[in-house]
């Protein structure tokens, strides 16, 4: 656990050095990314003025990206602000878009950088109490009527909120964005082995909370993360 915390601190310092602002005019690792994907093709079409292509691209990623930011900020209003900023950056950068990067990596790198920037600007959702509404918020039809499932969801989200920010970031990039370790490393600026370690810690802690079957473990994790 201590190594995880130390690991997180080191990463935080690295973030401060490497992520100057919410932008991606330069993607230093672009040459190592996978080439053209369908998403990239849509982005290129949008770059050339096809609004329909953007529409399709947007609806592929909007909900997952929103959830990523919602969990990272732990505050709905903040998440909405950053969410808009991310898309605005993407729209603005379309003229310079090149299909050298996997689109989802490109998108989540913007999102990650925007989140880090907003974190620096406003510490309200770093270390503060998470937005309680997030634990019960739900959209669309789902088996939330099942009380047991609802309870599990609540515990899982609470435990996720309690994770150190670097572990939460890696977990969400893996589960919401569907990124692999290498891509997460590119997005966060951390080494691949560091990413792997953070993901392992995150999974272990979340599993512990759910195994405990009550909120005690989540509270313990919360103390751990401070």
């Amino acid at each position: 656990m201590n190594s995880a915390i130390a690991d997180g601190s080191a990463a935080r310092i690295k973030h401060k050095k490497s992520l100057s602002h919410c932008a991606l005019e330069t993607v230093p690792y672009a040459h190592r990314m996978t080439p053209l994907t369908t998403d990239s093709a849509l982005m290129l079409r949008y770059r050339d003025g096809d609004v329909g292509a953007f529409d399709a691209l947007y609806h592929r990623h909007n909900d997952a990206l929103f959830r990523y930011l919602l969990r990272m900020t732990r505050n709905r209003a903040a998440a909405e602000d950053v969410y808009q900023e991310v898309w605005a950056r993407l729209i603005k950068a379309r003229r310079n878009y090149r299909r050298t990067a996997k689109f989802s990596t490109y998108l989540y790198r913007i999102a990650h950088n925007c989140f880090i920037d907003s974190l620096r600007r406003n510490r309200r959702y770093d270390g503060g109490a998470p937005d309680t509404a997030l634990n019960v918020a739900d959209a669309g039809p789902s088996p939330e009527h099942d009380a047991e499932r609802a309870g599990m969801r609540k515990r899982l989200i609470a435990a996720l909120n309690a994770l150190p920010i670097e572990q939460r970031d890696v977990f969400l990039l893996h589960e919401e964005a569907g990124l692999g370790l290498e891509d997460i490393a590119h997005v966060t600026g951390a080494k691949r082995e560091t990413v792997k370690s953070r993901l392992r810690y995150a999974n272990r802690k979340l599993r512990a909370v759910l195994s405990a079957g009550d909120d005690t473990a989540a509270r313990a994790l919360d103390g751990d993360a401070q």
Partner: protein
Amino acid sequence: MTDQQPPNDIGRLYRSVSNEAAPTELNETILRRAARDARRPRGSFLGRWPALVATSVTAGACAVWLLGPMHSAPTDNAPEQTRAVEDFAAAAADGRDRIREIGDAASAQIPAGDPSAAQSLHCTPEQTATLVAWSACIAALRDQGRDTAASEEMQRFFSVHGVKAPVIE
């Protein structure tokens, strides 16, 4: 290289319960913005360097505005240069019809009759007060066959403004 982690129960569970959607109003806002941005032209010099072009145009306009009056600075007492320049711009906007209209009015003010007397006629101070009226006066003189007077007025116009009076057909 095995980039992906093996499937795990926590990840599956998380994905099954994480189902918040992006707010509809945000979706609409962003899609509108994307559409608006896509309508803007891209790839042209003007599109890529709007600030540079705007700066160049502004600098050029300022240079003309400043150097123009210096170049055409009258040696005698010029009649309200500033007002004349404004009128000239206005005339350009209004077009030749407007100039013709002023010319007709100026023509009516020039007395006909004795040709020798007519040759000595010149545009009145009121007519030379503005570029438009002065140009119209010169045109009226030429229309009436008073070529000498028209030439003299044209010379005077040139000495004051540094350019020839526009020819009105």
